[in-house]
């Protein structure tokens, strides 16, 4: 059974100090319902990606809460948590529910409120994605883990600090034109390199910001769409998902992301496409090094070649493999649980030909979403209608 995206929408990502998870998720849902003939009463299930609701807002049981707030109080509901891939995992579960025949219409949402607490507490909440005993309790922060990966990668492949910064420069440039993005201002390589140190070699502008936001995708079976004469936005061609050791110290390698490699291989096989077929991609650039590792895991570049994407302009919106035309996590923002669904929203716009950084003839699109420092990853491949 095939799965379609009936509609998809996001709130703006950024600081929403006077809002709350329930208001943000509802806002994204209203926007998504506005663009389809599906109504809340049609929803068989509501799946919500969320990472730190229990830590920041003291709110658990978010699946049922959000089902109620999107007008589907009687639907099956669950919150799905897999750190920063909570959104991507939510989308995969929604697709599987439809493909299994168990559901015809599923709302796959994601939401996160992060800006209402101070930076040490957000860093502490994000650290829940890592191994608490072997990493956090030793003083290793989440940016610190990516810093370990970055330094090792630079050592193995003779990469310059400025080559990492180029990813941030490109993604900030993309974000300028995206009305949903948190940062709409260009940055130079020098501004990135000279920004506040976080965990060497990573500085503030190598990192995604602290963000609030929500995204919603409404997925339907192709038979439901046909029976109801629905106009759909995109087709789900394939998904792939894999895991790895939670702690970086237990991984087979720290300068590559094996779980992402496995997820990509499964998604490509599932969708019957190869990396060469991808016209546009949204990848998980929580830090600049993460985008470089993603490009290699997805087979867009050979090992050690990933820096070329941003440095040579090949991954710019007008390059041969445009990556993060939304601005990515770095430019658009990273409300953790929403991000994986937000990627689907951006790619759906690309496939419909109405993205602010439109790629010409975008027919096949890929989303890559990572949990923690690579312990869980989803890859989703979409096709245009």
């Amino acid at each position, binding site marked *: 059974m095939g799965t379609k995206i009936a509609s998809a929408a996001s709130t703006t990502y950024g600081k929403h100090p006077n809002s709350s998870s329930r208001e943000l998720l509802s806002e994204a849902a209203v926007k998504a319902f506005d663009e389809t003939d599906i109504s809340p009463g049609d929803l068989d299930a509501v799946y919500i990606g969320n990472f730190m609701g229990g830590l920041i807002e003291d709110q658990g049981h978010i699946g049922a809460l959000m089902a109620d707030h999107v007008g589907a109080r009687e639907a099956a509901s669950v919150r799905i948590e897999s750190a920063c891939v909570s959104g991507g995992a939510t989308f995969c579960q929604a697709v599987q529910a439809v493909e299994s025949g168990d559901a015809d219409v599923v709302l796959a949402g994601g939401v996160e409120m992060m800006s209402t607490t101070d*930076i*040490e*507490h957000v*860093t*502490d909440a994000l*650290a829940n994605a890592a191994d608490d*005993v*072997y*990493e*956090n*309790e*030793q*003083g*290793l*922060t989440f*940016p*610190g883990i990516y*810093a*370990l*990966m970055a*330094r*090792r990668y630079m*050592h193995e492949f003779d990469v310059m600090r400025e080559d990492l910064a180029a990813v941030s420069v490109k993604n900030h440039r993309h974000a300028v034109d995206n009305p949903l993005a948190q940062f709409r201002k260009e940055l130079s390589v020098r501004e990135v390199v000279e920004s*506040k*140190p*976080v*965990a*060497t*070699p*990573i500085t503030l502008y190598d990192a995604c910001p602290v963000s609030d936001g929500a995204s919603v995708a409404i997925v339907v079976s192709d038979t439901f769409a046909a029976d109801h004469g629905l106009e759909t936005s995109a087709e789900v061609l394939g998904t792939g998902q894999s895991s790895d*050791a939670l*702690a*970086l*110290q*237990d991984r087979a390698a*720290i300068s590559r992301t094996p779980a992402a490699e496995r997820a990509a291989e499964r998604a490509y096989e599932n969708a019957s496409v190869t990396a060469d077929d991808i016209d546009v991609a949204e990848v998980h650039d929580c830090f600049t090094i993460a985008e470089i590792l993603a490009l290699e895991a997805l087979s867009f570049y050979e090992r050690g070649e990933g820096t070329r994407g941003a440095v040579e302009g090949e991954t710019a919106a007008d390059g041969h493999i445009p990556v993060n035309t939304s601005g990515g996590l770095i430019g658009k923002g990273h409300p953790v649980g929403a991000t994986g669904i937000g990627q689907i929203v951006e790619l759906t716009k690309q496939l419909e030909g109405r993205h602010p950084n439109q790629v010409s003839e975008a027919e096949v699109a890929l989303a890559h979403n990572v949990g923690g420092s690579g312990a869980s990853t989803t890859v989703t491949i979409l096709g245009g209608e």
Partner: protein
Amino acid sequence: MPAWFDAFTDAIASGDQQYLVCETCGHGTLPPRQLCPACGSTELTQEPLSERGEILSFTEISVTIPKFHGETPYTVVLAELDEGVSLTGQLRDATPDDIAIGDKVVLGTEPHDNETALITFQQAED
């Protein structure tokens, strides 16, 4: 901290640290595990773990979590010990300018906040 980690760091402090070796596939891993992450076997035995290792990577942390408030900057090292298992710990008696990937280090442990133990690394003398 969980009791298993206290036992692990107590053993480091007394110089008889252990790791787990899979009798089926030979994979080395750290406690506590009941199944081998490489092959799923439950035949894991404790073996002595060397105190010597090599730096895989390191980072100087400037923005930290509340537990380490006021202690920045400090340096975290990821080191691979001679048996092939890796550990994360804080650098002692040196600055990040003094060390490089591939340098030899020695494993240690020390109390933190009078309650939990930290894993530490010092540069090896030879």
